[in-house]
Structure formats: C-alpha cells, structure tokens
C-alpha cells in the first residue's frame, strides 16, 4: 500500500465566434461633451470580466485613456442586442461589436476635429486622448475639446454603433459539412497527481497549463480563467456528479454540504503559460478562453492516474471507488483486437444490450 505519483497530458481545441445559434452582438457608443465615452451593449458579465475587456477594446480603438470609458450593460432599453454570454462569444463577438462601434465614433470624432483644425480627416490620428495631424504632432486638439466643439459649436453628437456576427451555416445532415465558427483556440495541460492505492484517493499536485488565446486583451483576466476553469475541471475529473449512481437517482446532492464541488483545499500548484497566435477575425487578434478552461484537466488527470497505478478510469469523476474498482480489475485481460463489427445498427443495439459498450464487440 503506497502513494504513487503520475503525470498525464492532454491537448485540446475549442471553437469561438460560433454561429450555430446565428448569434449577433450589437453595440452603441456616445461621447460626452468632455470627451468621456459611454459604451452600451447587452453583453452580460457573468464574472469573466467582459465589461473590462470591452472597455479596453473601445479605449484603444478610439485612442482614449482606458479610464475615460464607462460601460453600461444593465438593461435592454439602453443597450442594443447581444444574444448572450455563452459559446465563448463575449470577447470575440461582443468585442468585435464594440470595436466596430468605436471605429465609427473615431470617424465622427475626426470629422469634427477636421473642421476645427482645418485638416483633412485622413491626415489625422487619435491616441492618448488627443487628435494629432500625422507628421505634424504639434498640430493637435484634445478629444475633450473636439467633443466640446461638437456639442456647443456644431450642435452635434459624436456617436457610433456597430454589430458583428458570423452568418449561420446549416450543417449538411449527411456529412456535417458547414462553416460553424470564426476561430479555434488551442490548449495543453499537464497534470501531476498522487494516487493512494489503498484509499483510491487522487490528489492533483500541479497543473501546467498552456493556452493560445490569440491575443490576451487582459492577461490577468486570462489567468483568472485558466485557474478558475482548472478548478472546475478538477471537479469534473475527480469530484462532481449529479447522479453518483447514474442512472439511479440515489444520493443526489441538494446542498453544498452534500454535493462535492472543489474547494480551496483541492487547489493544486499552477503554472500558467499564455501563447498568442492571433486570429484573423477576432478583436486585436483575440480568440477566446472562457469555456475551454475546464476541458483539458479531466483527461490529463485520468491519464496521470494510469501513469501512477496502471489502470484506466474512463468514467468521470475518478472517485476513490472507481479507482479502487479499476485496481481490482487490473488483472483481467484487455479487450483489444484487430477487427470490430461496425454495423451501425448492431453497434447501437449492443449499447443497449451491454449497458454501454457498443463497439466492444471485438472479433479476434
């Protein structure tokens, strides 16, 4: 009886900018008379920080300091449509929508500035809250001055709106052919675990995680997703089950005290690596990280269990009971073979007949 160390690895991908719900996002932006900026979009911040990311995108697209930008996503009267925060679409689709809107505000800003400076708009640029003539940086005007001129001199509002979507693409029912997403994020995860062969308990000691997010709009928030997602992945891999005795309904947890979700006691050591291979269609090259952050750990953990004690736990979560049962079965012969029956009907029928091992009709 002993504790065994093991290492497992997984490499995953995840789509972003999806269109399978035909989901657009819209945004509109207005500028106050002192150049401060209000962004309105219906994108819900579910805790991932989309308001932060959206204001960052607007600030840089427009060329004003970040703290000049506020964001209001609080109601459907003032904010235009966003179908919602799901499918890892907040940064990619919502971010693209606010970027398009900010680009239009910038165009309006330059039109007003052009009148004030008597320079063609195409010869102007905006950065750090100032409109400057290209090649003649001393000919400049604060964005606040331009906004004031728009309001009090010209009687105009500097505003802009935008939207972004990936058009819906219906899958071919025979082959699945379609164009369902705008980019794919990739990630890899290395799990170091310790398996107790007496109790079946598995402890994750360390997770090394690499995420290509295209471009990290906010690296701190990306790390938050990496580590928060990893804890959810750890729950999937080791702890959580709605129906611990599926398909039976016994022992279904109905409180935090009877449903085992990960806590800080389960926290492993983290090593996070962010890679940036830009997407051609995302805002500032961004892809996404939101959902995929809990996908890589369960397979890495179960691979590490195999490395540690030589058994396959192929059902999640890898509870102590499952690990111990796998250890008991270890001496049984493997069922690998060269030939398998691949008749579709036979396969699905054998799922029913065997309680779930359709392909394992091995011949030879």
């Amino acid at each position: 009886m002993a504790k065994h160390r093991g290492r497992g690895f997984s490499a995953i991908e995840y789509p972003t900018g999806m269109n399978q719900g035909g989901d657009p996002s819209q945004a509109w932006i207005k500028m106050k008379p002192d150049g401060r900026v209000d962004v309105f979009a219906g994108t819900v911040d579910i805790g991932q920080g989309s308001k932060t990311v959206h204001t960052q995108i607007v600030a840089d697209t427009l060329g004003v300091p970040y703290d000049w930008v506020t964001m209001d996503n609080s109601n459907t009267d003032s904010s235009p449509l966003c179908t919602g925060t799901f499918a890892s679409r907040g940064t990619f689709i919502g971010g693209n929508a606010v970027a398009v809107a900010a680009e239009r505000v910038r165009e309006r800003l330059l039109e007003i500035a052009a009148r004030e400076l008597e320079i063609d708009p195409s010869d102007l640029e905006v950065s750090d809250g100032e409109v400057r003539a290209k090649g003649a940086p001393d000919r400049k005007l604060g964005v606040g001055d331009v906004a004031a001129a728009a309001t009090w001199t010209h009687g105009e509002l500097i505003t802009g709106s935008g939207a972004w979507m990936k058009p819906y693409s219906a899958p071919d029912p025979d082959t699945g052919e379609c164009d369902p997403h705008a980019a794919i994020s990739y990630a890899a995860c290395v799990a170091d675990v310790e398996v107790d062969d007496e109790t079946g308990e598995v402890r994750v000691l360390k997770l090394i995680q690499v995420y290509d997010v295209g471009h990290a709009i906010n690296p701190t928030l990306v790390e938050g997703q990496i580590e928060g997602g990893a804890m959810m992945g750890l729950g999937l891999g080791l702890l959580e089950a709605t129906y611990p005795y599926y398909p039976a309904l016994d022992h279904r947890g109905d409180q935090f005290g009877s449903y085992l979700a990960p806590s800080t006691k389960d926290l492993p050591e983290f090593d996070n690596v962010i890679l940036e291979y830009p997407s051609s269609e995302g805002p500032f090259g961004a892809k996404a990280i939101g959902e995929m952050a809990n996908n890589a750990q369960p397979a890495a953990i179960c691979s590490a269990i195999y490395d540690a004690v030589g058994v396959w736990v192929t059902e999640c979560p890898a509870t102590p009971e499952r690990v111990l049962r796998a250890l008991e079965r270890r001496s049984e012969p493997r069922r690998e073979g060269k030939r398998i029956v691949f008749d579709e009907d036979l396969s699905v029928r054998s799922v029913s007949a065997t309680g779930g091992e359709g392909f394992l009709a091995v011949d030879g």
Partner: protein
Amino acid sequence: MKAVGARLPRYDGLQHVTGQSVYVDDVRVPDMLWAKALRSTVHSAEIKKLDVSKALRVPGVHAVVTHEDVPVNIVGHLAALGVPADEPLLAEHEVRYQGQPIAVVAAETEEIAQEAVNAIEISYEEREPFLDIRKAFDPDVPKVSPSGNLFVYEPYTERRVRKGDIDWAFEKADRIVQGVYRPAAIEHCPTETQVALVVPEATGRLVIYSCTQAMYFSMGVVATHLGVSLNDLKFVGGTVGGGFGGKVDTAAETISALLAIKAKRPVKWRWTREEEFLCSSVRATWHVEIADAVTKDGWILGRRTLTLHDAGAYTRFSSYGATKHAFHLGGAYTIPNLSFNAYVIWSNHVPTTAMRGFGVTSVSFAVELHMTRIATVLGIDPWELRLKNASRVGDTAPTRVVLKDPSAVPTIQAAAQAAGVELASEYRAMTNAPRKGKTLPRHLVDQLGAWRDNGGR
C-alpha cells in the same frame, strides 16, 4: 498607454468584493409579493387532477397560475433555428421529470406562498420513468415523448459527420484502439440561485430584473410566452452571481411575469438552494465510444465514434450541444477519415443544458484519454503521438473548414518545455506550417493528395 494587453483591474472588481454590486435578490420594491412553485414529485406521470381552489383561499395569496394562464405555454429555446418546441412552461396533462413546475403561487410572504402550494390538490398516475440513456435503442423502454426517445436531426436520428473513406482506414490499420468514456452530469453550482423580480408599471410595461446570462435571448423567450412585443418588456440585468451556462435557460422570469400580471403587484421568485440543485438544469451525462484505426508508428488513419447525449426531459439546447460535440470529435488533430454519430436522447432526468465547454468538454475528456491509451497500446511517446497528428495550417476540420491558424503544435511544445519534457529533435523543430509529403507516411500521401485535390473533402 495601450489598454489592450494591459493587466488592468476588473471594471467591477471593487464593487463585487465590497458587496456593492446589486444582484437581483438585492432589489426590493414596495408591495412586492413572493412566489413558490408546486413541482412534480415524480419522474413521469399523467396528471389526473389539479385543483388550486384551496390555495386561492389561503389568506395573503394574490395569484395562482397554471398552464391555463400562459398565452403560449410551449416555447422552444431554439425555435428560431427550426428545433421543434417541446417544453411547457407549466406542466399540462403530464410531467416528465421530478421538479417540473406545475403551478405557482404569489403571496405576501414566502411562507404563505409555500402554505398555499401545499394546499394545491394534485394526483398523478405514475408511469415507469426512462432514466438510462444506454437503453435508448431498446424497443421495450418507456417513451419519454410520444415520438420516442430520440431527437431527430432531419432526416436522421443522429448528427452525422462523414469524411474520407472510413473503411479504407480500418482496412489499412495496424491496430484498432477503442474505448468508452462517460463523463457524468454535474451541477452549475452558482452562488446566486435562479431568481427574478418582475415589476408591472402603470404604463403596462413589465420591468424584469433577471439573472440571465443572455438578456435579449431571455427577453425573446418571455415575449413569446406572453405574446407581447419587446417594448412591453424591459430587462434589467447584466451582472450575474455565477452562471456557467445554467442561466442561458430562461428559468424564473416568465412565471414571475405571469404572476405579476395576474396579481397586479411586483413579484419576486427566488429558488431555494435545494431547487437550484434538484430542479434547475445540469450538464448532461455523456456516453462516448471511440474506435481509432492507427498505424504502428502512431498515425491515426480513421476514427469512428458513437455518442449518446442525455438531454433530460426536454430538448432545450441539446441538439446544438451534440452538434458542436460531433464537429469537434477529431480533437486538436487532423484525421483524414471520419465517421461520427451523435444521438440526443430524451430521458426523465431534469433537462440538461449548456455548461462551460458545452458539447466539447465531453470530447476533450474522451479524445484525450483515448490518445493516452493509443500511445500506451502502441508503446510510443504520448507527446510525439499528439504532435504527429496535430492539426496544421491548411488541414481541414471534421466540418471541412480549412484551418487558417491552428496552434496545436506550438501549444504542445510550450507545455513540454514548461513541464521539462525533452522532445526528440524532429518534434522540437516541428511547426504548424502546412504538411509536406515527407512528413507523411507513404500510405497517407496518396490519400491526402487526392483529398487535398478534392478541396479537402
């Protein structure tokens, strides 16, 4: 200073950690009533009797609603995509899962509302429930829906992916490696349970304080149930106390709105922790079978899969989730010959829904544990197996989308470096550049050449 790429603090972080952020349950308005629901105590039954008259006589009760009060009771979450609507807002003649709402009461307090719920008379004729999706193809199992237990992707009962020549792959294979992978259903576990507050304004508009992850989507669902325009509703939200996918479903808003309309008073319905765990949607149970045709040096020539996805009692987003699942069963790899079948199966469990990684979390578990298994069976390095098959620029996904910027190769290399794993020089030097003939085994060159000539089909 550039904002993009900067480690700026969260926009609303200080608000959150100082307790100043306003969540739905923080909002109190004058004359507010509280809601409680009568939910099914059984998994599957005909409703033989439903009588709310005693509930209406409980002092302090202002409204009771049943399916008869809902202008459009059956609304599909994906009706706009042509997915048939199957789920009633409030149960009509039958219940299909334990916890399904049947009638809802609005009263002066939650205690009075619960007392009234307890006074509702209901009787069931129980049916044998169908709970194990692995038995879905057994002709003798109970039917969840009159049409059976399988969602239909016209004209098939499964989402299909087909690419290349799967029989060729299995004919050429040195080994066939198989596995069955079963990730469990899990809970979303938000700190904030499902909650809504609906305030009827004198103008006739309804102001709906919502914890939805999808304000406009939910507004559309509510408007469809009530048969009103989008301007008859104002959703207030945007800040959520934990969603993880579970709050894409529209849960408390519509029923609270019906009670508010009937009582002509603001109504708040906040689910208890027990209701959140037992009656709200969950991540689905999945059953994924994989058989890979591999060469002894680690090329995956073909992959056959069979997936069963437990939708629970109604479809909600399951058809979308299983489609997304099928599109990603190749994982981070390019496999030229594919045959995937993914079934959405109705059961008498609570409806399942989106949860972080929807459809693909199950793929990542199944495919990646399977990759480790292939490496073990073949006796080759798991890093090299993955790098060898990793998608490269110009490869095509199972959907035949040409990959413009796949970064599987550098991502795996970076993980190896961070983990102190010494890769062989050819794998250290590998990039995501398009594959060249010499990086492919002879038997794949011909096939891939023909495949590319055919536009990756």
